[in-house]
């Protein structure tokens, strides 16, 4: 039986929020040993990525480099909201809003330095994302 849970979090402005433990907890709670886990968030100015947790200053680098690639310009065509929102849409599209993980022996198979990050490209906001764990047939 597949298992799904919604995880809520309060983000900060351009915050990088470690959600590795939350995801692992859902997988553990599901009781599923072998299968896949799908993570997705339903926001367009946030993203979910995997990156190294060896040095957390690297997370700031990610936001900074993204900001250089996709600056908070005020003259995007999408000017209905704010520059942060317009740039956030692009950052989110590039990073992706979810991923699929392999579940093995009751855990997501992540490398020793890998972790899952919820990236806020606007914020502070109330956010949520979904984790669904599906067992092998």
């Amino acid at each position, binding site marked *: 039986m597949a298992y799904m849970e919604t995880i809520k979090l309060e983000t900060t402005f351009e915050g990088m929020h470690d959600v590795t433990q939350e995801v692992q907890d859902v997988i553990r709670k599901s009781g599923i040993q072998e299968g896949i886990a799908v993570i997705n968030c339903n926001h367009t100015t946030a993203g979910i990525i995997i990156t190294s947790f060896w040095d957390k200053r690297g997370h700031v680098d990610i936001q900074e480099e993204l900001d250089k690639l996709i600056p908070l310009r*005020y003259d995007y065509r999408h000017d209905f909201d704010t520059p942060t929102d317009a740039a956030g849409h692009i950052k989110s599209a590039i990073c992706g809003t979810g991923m699929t993980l392999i579940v093995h022996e009751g855990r997501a198979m992540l490398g020793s330095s890998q972790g899952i990050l919820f990236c806020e490209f606007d914020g*502070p906001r109330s956010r949520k994302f979904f984790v669904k764990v599906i067992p092998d047939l």
Partner: protein
Amino acid sequence: MDRKSYDNSLLRQAMSMERYAKIVYDAVLPQVEKLPMKEVWDAQKIFISGCGDSWLAGIAAKAAFESVTKIETNPMRAIEFSRILSNKNLGYSPNTPLVILISFSGSGSRVVECARRCNKYGANTIAITNNPDSLLGKECRYCICTGLPKGDEYQPGLITYNASMITLFLIALRIGRVRNKISYLECEDMQKELLEHISRCQKEYEGFAERAFAIAQRWKDLKAEDFIGDYSDYATAYFGSAKVIECFGGYTTYDDSEDWCHINYFLSDPERIGRVVVANEDTPSYKRLKETIAAVKILQSPCVIISDAKKEEFPDTMEVFSFPKAKYFWMQPLVQHIPFDMIAGYIAEIKGIPNFRKDDERYAAMGDQRSGEIVVL
């Protein structure tokens, strides 16, 4: 009767408006320029709130905010903002809405309540106050001090009303500039024009005072004053009514040009009700206002018209206070309340009634506005 012996606070304040405007302008401009660009951008909606005159300053500045920033702007009664407004309107997106809270002393319970409610839901707040160390100044994310010298004469509020408006206008210009809705040239010109329009009008006041005194003598025994104005000019009308009450406790009522025709047209004893209409030539409802003035004429009420149009535009039985045209129409509320302030001030002085019913000890029951209960919903 010698006008000089009927000097009063509102008149003195009106006469020194230019000087105070300069003080406020110089104090506020550098503070406004420090408002961060990102937060200015994040404002998708603006609320302006405060009690009494401060709320009116918000209404007076609504047209300015809309024309200069192109952001939806809602002046709101303090109690509506803190208790009635649904919290869905607060903090639904980062730093939005932008809430501007106005209080000269910064200590009234209700505005503090508004600020705390914003903080609870994540709205961005700017306080406009003369006391940055006040509770309001501390609760808000940004505090703009109007910089009026302590201890001068500010009651009943006139200079403080103007200070709020000047500050609001400068904030609007800052937002418009950051969002590139007005160019540098326009912004510079508007800033300059703010003070220049006040100076230009100041020259008229000596003559206005003369006429105001004559009107005050005729109007002192009227039953009530009825004020009419639309949109931003509704603030001018409402403000006039507030001054009547503060100065001599007179009976007043107010409405817009359309609803007046449906309701207040029917007030009894029209010949004993003084009517005041604010009708500017460039306002979109100017023709409507003129129709309303025609209806006032039917009733033969004594009538004062405040306008930037020529005297000849209106029936000759009516007293017209013509103001110089403002280069930017939204600046008119800065000055147009002056004629009726003068009239109210003179009536009070002629009748010998002190401001805020200080002659009647029962009214002292009001006590301190700070003591009210604060409820954060």
